[in-house]
C-alpha cells in the first residue's frame, strides 16, 4: 500500500478558527459552494463533501470557457485531455486538494489519476482511511489480445484503459473487416450490432482485467456471455477510417451479472448509446498471488 492510514490521521488536527480563515484564503478563487463544502468537511470529516471540493478546486483552474463542462456529469472528463490542464496545473490542483482535505498524494499515485472520477475516488478513499483502488490499467495491442477470450477476426478493441469505475477503449474501423464486404453492398458501414458487440467485449475485458470482485476469486474467462441490452439508440453512421471511442461504466457487478452503461463516440460526436448492457459471468478460485493483491471492498465502494 502506498501510504499507511496512520499518516493521514497524523495530518488531521482540530479545526480552529484561524484554520478556517486560512482555508477560506486558500480557496478564495473557488465558488462559495466549494468553500462551504471544505469548511463542512474540515469540521466533521464527512466524505460526502469531497466531490464538491474536488470539482470546485478543478473548476478554479480551468479556463472560463471550459467550466460549463464541469456543471453536469463529469467523472469521465480527463483533466489533461478534456479540460486543457497541463501536468503542472495538475500539481497545483493536487497541492490545493492536499491542503484543503489534509491528505497527502505522492507523485507515483498521481500518475494513475486521469479523470475527475479517479481523483474523487482517490481522495475519498484517503479521507475514509481505506486504501485507494489500483490505478487504471492501460492495455495495448498484444497484452489486450492475450487477455481476451475473443480473437481475430471478431475482436473490436485496439487498446483499452480499465479502472474499477470505468473502461474505455478505441477501435479504428480499418475497412478490412470481413462483414463490411456485404454491409452494405458497395457502401461499408459498421453494423450497429457489431458496435454493441464491441461494448460487450469491453465489458469482458473489464471483468478480466484483474479487478477485485470477491476475495480470493477471479472471473473465469470461459464463463462470460452476453445476457441482455436495453435502451439502445444509434446517432451516427460509422465508416472505415473512423476511430470509435468506447466508454463503459459498471452499474452493478455481482455474480452472476455485470450491468454496464455504454456509449461510443467518434471524436466529440455520439455514435451509439446503450443504457444497459448485461453480461453473465462466473467466479473461479484465484491463483495465490492475485489473491494477496485483491481488496474486496474497493469495487463495490467505487460503484456504489
Amino acid at each position, binding site marked *: 500500500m502506498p501510504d499507511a492510514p496512520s499518516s493521514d490521521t497524523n495530518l488531521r488536527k482540530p479545526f480552529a478558527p484561524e484554520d478556517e480563515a486560512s482555508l477560506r484564503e486558500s480557496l478564495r*478563487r473557488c465558488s462559495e459552494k466549494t468553500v462551504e463544502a471544505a469548511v463542512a468537511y474540515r469540521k466533521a470529516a464527512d466524505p460526502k463533501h469531497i466531490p464538491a471540493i474536488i470539482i470546485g478546486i478543478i473548476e478554479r*483552474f480551468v479556463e472560463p470557457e471550459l467550466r460549463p463542462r464541469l456543471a453536469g456529469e463529469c467523472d469521465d472528463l480527463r483533466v489533461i485531455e478534456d479540460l486543457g490542464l*497541463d501536468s503542472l*496545473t495538475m500539481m*497545483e490542483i493536487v497541492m490545493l486538494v492536499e491542503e484543503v482535505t489534509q491528505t497527502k498524494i505522492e507523485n507515483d499515485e498521481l500518475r494513475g489519476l486521469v479523470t475527475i472520477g479517479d481523483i474523487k475516488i482517490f481522495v475519498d478513499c484517503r479521507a475514509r482511511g481505506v486504501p485507494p483502488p489500483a490505478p487504471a490499467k492501460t492495455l495495448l495491442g498484444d497484452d489486450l489480445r492475450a487477455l481476451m477470450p475473443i480473437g481475430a477476426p471478431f475482436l473490436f478493441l485496439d487498446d483499452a484503459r480499465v479502472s474499477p469505475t470505468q473502461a474505455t477503449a478505441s477501435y479504428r474501423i480499418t475497412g478490412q473487416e470481413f462483414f463490411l464486404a456485404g454491409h452494405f453492398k458497395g457502401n461499408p458501414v459498421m453494423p450497429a450490432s457489431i458496435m454493441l458487440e464491441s461494448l460487450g467485449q469491453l465489458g469482458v475485458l473489464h471483468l478480466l482485467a484483474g479487478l477485485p470482485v470477491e476475495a480470493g476469486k477471479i472471473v473465469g474467462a470461459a464463463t462470460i456471455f452476453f445476457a441482455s441490452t436495453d435502451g439502445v439508440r444509434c446517432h451516427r453512421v460509422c465508416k472505415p477510417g473512423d476511430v470509435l471511442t468506447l466508454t463503459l461504466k459498471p452499474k452493478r457487478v455481482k455474480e452472476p451479472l455485470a450491468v454496464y452503461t455504454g456509449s461510443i463516440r467518434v471524436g466529440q460526436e455520439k455514435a451509439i448509446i446503450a443504457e444497459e448492457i448485461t453480461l453473465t459471468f462466473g467466479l473461479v478460485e484465484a491463483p495465490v498471488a492475485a489473491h494477496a493483491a485483491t481488496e474486496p471492498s474497493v469495487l463495490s465502494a467505487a460503484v456504489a
Partner: protein
Amino acid sequence: MPRIFITGLGFITSIGNSAAAVEQSLRELRHGMVSYPPFAANNIPVKVAAPVRDFKTDAEDPEDWTIPAPYAVKREQLRSLSPNALYACCALQQAIADARLAPQDVSNDDTGLYAASAGSPVTLGRQLNRMNQNGVMRCPPLGVVASIAGTVQFNLVAHFKIRGASTGFTSACAASAHALGFAFDEIALGRQKRMFVVGAEDGNTETILPFASMRAVSLNPDPATASRPFDKRRDGFVGTGGAAVLVLESEDEVARRGATPYAEVLGWGQASDGHNVAISHPEGLGLANAMRRALKAAGVSPAEVDHINAHATSTPIGDASECKAIRAVLGEHAARAAVSSTKALTGHGLSLAGAMEAGFCALALKHGFIPGSAHIGELDPVCDGLRIPRATESVQPRIVLNNSSGFGGANVCVVFKQVV
C-alpha cells in the same frame, strides 16, 4: 553582410506605454517620477521612483494583478510570469503589431529572441520564504521559472512560440544593449533573419532599494529633480521598470514584407573597464573603447555623430566618466554632437535601459528630433566641451549613438543611422 533595420518597437515604461506616448514625453520632456508610496516609511531614505503606469503587480498572486486593456493574459501563462516578464509580454505584443508581423513571421526557424533582465527579486524572495515556511513540496511549481534571471526569455519564447535563437543577458545596466548587439550579430552572420530584443525590469522596491546602500540611488525627495544627469547636484539614479522591445530584421525581410524601418543598426562595440566591480573607470576607459569599436564597425567617423543618448544615470562618478569618454572619442567634434540622457525622464531601468534607449534613438531618427537632457539646473563643469541640449530639438539626426555601462565595468555602444 546584410544590412539590419529596426522595424518595430514596444514600450511599457514610466513615460508611456506606446511609441506615440513615449515620443510625446521625449519631445515635451515629461518625466515619469513620483513620490513612490512603497518608499513612504520613515526608515527608507529613498523617496522617488518611476513606476510603470496602469499596471499593478505588487500582489503576491499574479491573478490579483491589474493588467490594462488591450492586454489579457491567461492564467496558464500568468502563473509563470514575474512582473517584468508580464511587461515584456505586453511590449512584445506591441512590437509585433507595430512591425505588422503575421503569426508565421513570429514563430519560425529564422526568428529568435534575446532578452535581458535581472530576474525578479521579489518573486524569488517569496518563493524562498514559502519554501522555508510551508515546505519544499508546497511551493508554486513554476516559482523557479517565474523568478530566476532568465524568466523573461523563458516566458516569451514559450508564449510566443519562438523557434529560433534564444537566450538572456545579465550584464546588469548594459544587458539589453548586449542583447541588441548580439542579436545584430545573429542576423549579420546569417543565422537568423529576424530577432526580438527585449529588456525588462520589475522596477519595484526589491529591484531598486538594494542599490541604496551602495549610494547609487538618489535621496532627493523631489520627483522633478531627483534624476538630473550632468547636473552639478546630481546624487544618484531614480529606479524604474517596465519593458522595451525592438524588432530587428535583415534587409531581405524588410524588402519581402515591405516594412517601413525606424532606423538602420550600423554596428556596435563593447569593451570592459578592467577596473572595479561596481564603479566605472574614472577616465571612462572601457566606454571610450566600446565607442571607438562601435564607430569602426559601423564605418562612421566622429565628425558624423549627431546625437549620443548617454548612459548617464545621474550618479556623480558615472556621469563624469562618460563625459570624459565622449570627449576622448569625439575629440574636436565633441562640441557638435548633441549629448543627452533620457534617464532624466525615465529614471534608470537597469537591464531595461539599453533596449529602451535604443528605442528612443529609433524614434528620434524616424521622427526627426533630438531629446533634450532634462532637469539640469547648473551644468557640472565636468561636462565642459560637450553640447548638452536642455530642451528637445526638432532637427533630423543622421547618425545616433546609444551608450550603456553595467556592473563589472562592461560597456556597450550601438550606432544607428537614419533611413532615407
